[in-house]
């Protein structure tokens, strides 16, 4: 009895001295030092940059949906108050969706900046100089692409506001703990930064990658040239726009027009750069992705963005861009609506994000050449190739009374080719055209230069960073 108690007592006393180890490591994360410790982790950090742009707010359809809701290609049947106010030009500076959009872009920019900053010093000796340069170049491509998307949304286009219009902050630092209050660079500075950076990195970028997913989904010489072509086009630098487009189209072993519209959804020569999405990426986010916005409720989408009547009127009845790429749906009230089939995955939202397509590059060149040379054969040839693919009659030079009519036709082809891919808003604004046609309720508010054709700097950012200046109409 006595012994028993003693044993028990000593045993329990032992519990007093149980090991006290308070150092434990996270299991799902790496410390920042480890994130650039070897080749695998450096490449992982780079792929993380691409991955962050899969988010809904970056290339997961939100900026494109916003552009569509502001312009005339879709009819808003929305449920989101924050998107609703953008579509009816009553946007407020505290719009939470726009705040998140700003945030998600700069988060991806930070990830890119970290790759630019830390890759050269990675201690892994098996990482060659060429690989390091390429990784840095890819990260630079991504931050240029991100900043360009931001400046288009948050600043007046250069043709309206000029080079000195307020743009967005150019951020190239990898956050070190010191909080910098960045101010807005001008649109001209942002453009110049992007153009310089892209020109610098072309030499370091590969033409292709071992897999088609990477050739279409990672930065390449072709992607950098194509992006340059778009920037120069937006800036009215026609010669450069045409040249850069040509640089892309000349690589015809990599890029070329598909023969029909079955190219959607696959990695093929129709894509210069597309963010690769899989079932696990945009997953079941509550806000959805491409498939969610552009599909009917009946098919499992939100049904927010069917064809507008304006867009329907633009297509000829037999235009395959209409017939092959749309689907009719009758809603609860018996009204028939047409939805695009470019993004069919309503279940896992795994459709790739078509950021730069060969078709766009073709249209860039056609437009730039027409601006330079008026009605010309090469432009005609380029747009006729698209019309033939759509099953339409081709144009002859004599069909156009003037250079203006010709340019308007190129723009119209651009609208019909690139509908639902987020191009329409900038294509109208850079041509000094209103976002909504005359007769629309919001025609006046949608004119180029109007305050709410561009987005407000998030109120949250202004509250913290006194260096930022709000866009007019949002103060």
């Amino acid at each position, binding site marked *: 009895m006595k012994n028993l108690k003693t044993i028990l007592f000593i*045993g329990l006393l032992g519990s007093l001295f149980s090991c006290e180890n308070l150092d434990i490591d996270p*299991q799902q994360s790496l410390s920042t030092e*480890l*994130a650039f410790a070897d080749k695998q982790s450096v490449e992982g*950090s780079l792929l993380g940059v691409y*991955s962050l742009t899969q988010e809904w707010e970056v290339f997961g359809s939100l900026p494109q949906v916003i552009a569509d809701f502001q312009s005339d290609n879709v009819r808003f049947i929305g449920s989101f108050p924050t998107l609703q106010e953008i579509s009816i030009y009553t946007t*407020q500076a505290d719009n939470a969706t726009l705040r998140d959009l700003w945030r998600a872009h700069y*988060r991806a*920019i930070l990830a890119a900046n970290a790759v630019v900053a830390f890759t050269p010093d990675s201690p892994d000796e098996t990482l060659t100089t060429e690989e390091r340069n390429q990784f840095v170049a890819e990260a630079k491509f991504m931050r240029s692409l991100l900043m360009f998307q931001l400046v288009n949304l948050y600043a007046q286009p250069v043709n309206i506001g000029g080079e000195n219009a307020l743009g967005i902050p150019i951020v190239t630092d990898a956050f070190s703990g010191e909080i910098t209050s960045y101010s807005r660079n001008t649109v001209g500075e942002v453009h110049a930064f992007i153009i310089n950076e892209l020109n610098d990195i072309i030499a370091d970028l590969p033409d292709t990658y071992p897999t088609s997913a990477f050739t279409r989904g990672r930065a390449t010489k072709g992607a950098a040239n194509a992006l340059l072509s778009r920037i120069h086009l937006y800036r009215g630098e026609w010669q450069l726009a045409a040249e850069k487009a040509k640089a892309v189209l000349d690589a015809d072993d990599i890029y070329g027009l598909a023969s029909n519209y079955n190219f959607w959804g696959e990695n093929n020569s129709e894509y210069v750069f597309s963010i690769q999405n899989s079932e696990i990426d945009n997953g079941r986010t509550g806000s959805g992705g491409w498939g969610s916005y552009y599909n009917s409720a009946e098919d499992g989408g939100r049904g927010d963005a069917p064809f507008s009547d304006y867009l329907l009127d633009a297509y000829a009845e037999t235009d395959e861009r209409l017939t092959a790429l749309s689907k009719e749906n009758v809603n609860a009230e018996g009204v028939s609506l047409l939805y695009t089939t470019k993004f069919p995955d309503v*279940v896992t939202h795994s459709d790739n994000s078509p950021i730069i397509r060969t078709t766009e590059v073709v249209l860039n060149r056609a437009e730039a050449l027409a601006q330079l040379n008026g009605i010309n054969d090469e432009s005609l040839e380029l747009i006729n190739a698209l019309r033939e693919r759509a099953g339409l009659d081709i144009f002859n030079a004599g069909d156009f009374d003037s250079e203006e009519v010709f340019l308007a036709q190129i723009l119209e082809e651009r609208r019909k080719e690139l509908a639902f891919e987020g191009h329409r808003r900038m294509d109208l604004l850079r041509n000094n055209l209103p976002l909504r046609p005359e007769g629309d309720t919001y025609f006046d508010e949608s004119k180029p230069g109007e305050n709410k054709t561009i987005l407000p700097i998030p109120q949250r950012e202004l509250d913290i960073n006194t260096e930022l200046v709000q866009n007019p109409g949002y103060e």
Partner: protein
Amino acid sequence: MLKNLNLLFTMKRVLLSLAFSVLAVISVMAQNRNVTGTVTSEDEPNGIPGVNVSVKGTMVGTITDIDGTYSLSIPEGSNVLSFSFVGFETQEKMIDNQSQIDVFLTPDVKTLGEVVVVGYGTQSAKMSVQSISSLDNSQIERMPIFTAQEALQGQAAGVQLTGTSGVGGAQQNIRIRGVASLTAGGSPLFVVDGVPLNDGSSGDYANESGAVTLNPLMELNPNEIESISVLKDASAVAIYGSRGANGVILIKTKKGTSGKSQINVDFYRGVQSPTTVRPYMSLDQYNQYRSARTGDPASSFPQTGFDWPDAVIEQGKISNLNVSASGGSENTTYFISGTYFMQDTYALGNELDRFNGRLNMTHKFSDKARFGANVGLAKTYNDRINSDNSTFAPLTSAFLHLPYSQPFDDNGNYTRLGFIPNLLALADLAKTDYITRRTTANTYFEFDILPDLTFKTDWGIDQIQTEETMRYPDIIEPTGEGYKRIIQDYKWLSTNTLNYQKYFGDSHYFGALLGYSYEQSDFSSMTVEGSGFVSDKLPNVASAATPTITSATGTGWRLASYFARVNYRFKDKLLFEGSARRDGSSRFGRDNRYGNFWALSGGWVLSEEKFLQNNSFLDFLKINASYGTAGNDRVDNFASLGLYQAGSLGDYAGSPGIYPSQPANPTLGWEESAQFDFTLYATMFNNKLDVEASVWNKRTTGLLLDVPIPYTTGYASYAQNAGSMRNRGIDLMINSLNVQSSGFEWRTILNVGFLENEVLELPGASEDNEGRRFVQGSSSQRAIEGYSVNTFYLVRYNGINPETGEAEWLNGDGESTSTYSTNNREIIGSAIPRISGGLTNTFSYKGFDLSALFTFTQGNYIMYDDLRFLYNPNNLNSFNLDPQLLDYWTEDNPNSFAPRLGGTTQSNFGQRSTIHIRKGDHIRLRNLSLTYNVPAEILERTKVFRSARIYGMAQNLLTFSDLEEGLEPEISGNGSDNQIQGESFFTPAQAKSFTLGVSLGF
């Protein structure tokens, strides 16, 4: 880890096998002569039942029976009987030749009767210098409640409790003496029988079903609770160190008492309905409004509608069956209990079932050594629904569905309705289960090293496994979707204390507690999700074509603590206490790993002084004051590290990737709350009136603040110990026996707390246009320097201009304008009630008890965020709307609710403003109960029943407030988020319930 687990299992096995072998060894020894007698006291002249009578120096003993008598065989050679009972002084009597020994026990001045549970021990309620609100089981059992927290509402001064929603199993939002933190958890620490509970504060419990998060007391049945102590001031909580800043709630479960086994059966059953339901447009109203808006005749719109809210609100049912038994021999006591609780809430598709079991036992090896075990087991099955901001939430989407949306097509099949799903199909075909299995247990061993020095070691576990299963059919998610998440959170702790108590002479009492504890929690989760099913009949993710989530995670924390408490009393008149704790936590950076917390308090029993004696009304008067600190460690497990996260947000095109997820902050440290408390406690008029009043001031410094930084840095915020906040208030408790005459008794208990919260400093935070620093909680509220942590900051709505028919708001200069701008936001008020409390009146007459508990809050605002949808004219053809929109401006209707159709403010009318906010002041008849106790004479005749009670209860029967129909005042749509309080997004209203029950004792 594995090693520790094994060690624990081994330890437990050894302990248990030892315990049982010891039990077997003890047997009754030879017995000789017999002694009988009766034990009485002044209050109980007819005999005290349950008094321990033992033969000194032997294992022989018994307890007195119901009339205070005992009979005992005395072994040869023994000559001393010992009589002991809680609250009385132990007496020893020489036996000699006596065969009858009657004993008169006197109350023990050391414990002075009522005992209160404090951290790591108990104290005399009257001699304690801690500020504690205490509830006994009579205050808990009287309600048909699912979790024990609900009992605290209105029954503990200084405790603000808000039911978060009417969804089954929704957590209760508890704030003890205000909120002491911004970003770190705000809930108190729950400790059951010495085991601090996992409370899911880490965020790892996040799940797919919307607002409901883990309720730490979900698996504890209120029937099993003996007492609840709410520790409020620094002297009470400092002993819990880094987890004490939000207050501590100590729960003690029931124990058996020696004597004949007593069996209790309790059963109740009832019905439930929502306290209030939102108004919504009928199809006719909708068509009428649409016609007015579009100019088309109403007849051109759909003419067949469906009443969605009516379809998703049904009559709820609630029932509960509890069977328990308790008793024991002189050395061993037990309490065993089993409960089945079932609630089918008023929301379509929401059901809750819970099975509880509990076994508590104690055993005395000898005069010096004791051991005990408390084991609670539970399984909760929750057929969940989403709530709040989720389109899958029936009580949200029913009010948003267009009134002409049809759940069935012409063939009677479910329709696919898209973004706002078909709620009937969802309830019928989807599987949305949440199962929790939990074991909370501890075993302890106590040994009296010296007569006044006791060693206690306690091993506790709190093991939770949750299993969340969802399976949406094709009609809801095209091709079908399946989801399963299993969480295991295994926590164990070892607590070891030395306790010393001694009187030196008559005047000096000295007590000391010294302890060490180590606590470790290991969390793991496994989640799979897939889509693409051949058939809705395949329930598991394994049948899915495309796995969309395949995830397994792990995390954990450790806490090592040293603590001590010293008590000194001089002549039971002057009281002193000091306590201290040193905590080391794995959650903090290496530089700030350890934190020290302490408290000092002193009391003076004035009624013991000569100048207050010999007065006719004052029975007892004590004042005490305390000051001390406590901390808050409710931060993410790895908040101080700079991190790159891997996983599906980092991968790209099939290759693994990582991304920066958190900036480093190696200096991250503890949040510390320093509190001053002054309390007066008085008992008057022959113990008929108790008054307790406390004035307190709690100041939190080093506030863990996610200082928002410009998004352009790439991060949203930076965790810092910046900022300070103050809560101060008055707690008042009055317990009055108003009338006591033959057969009739009327008692009133008032608990009320006055609270003022103010954010003092937020260094580094954003500044608004008036130069005030703030941290934003939601689009409607923020913490602002100089104001409350939950300050609503909105544009002030100024009504419809009767002249123009346009909506108007106030601009920065207080002028009315028809231009809406968020730059005109101003401070509206706080979401935190200034006054909250409860008033209980109990009337007893000849076996009848009538009890009414009113709860009340005053001084808070509530944002009904959903009104932004319902009042928004732009949502025509997107959602159903509020019928008030039909009251639009025309020249004949200049004083309208809504602006002129086609006016310029039509599109801005739905913008966030004070039109969506209300004052939350209300009084609610929270609980009304009528009980009939069958008289003892009748029961005796049955020879079966010891007691019998029949009762009826009504919950939330009446609500008095200025709120219009459909607006529920008791909500907290964002759960326990400190920075977002008092916001509702279609948050389901509390349930009104009627129950009938019967309770039998055998």
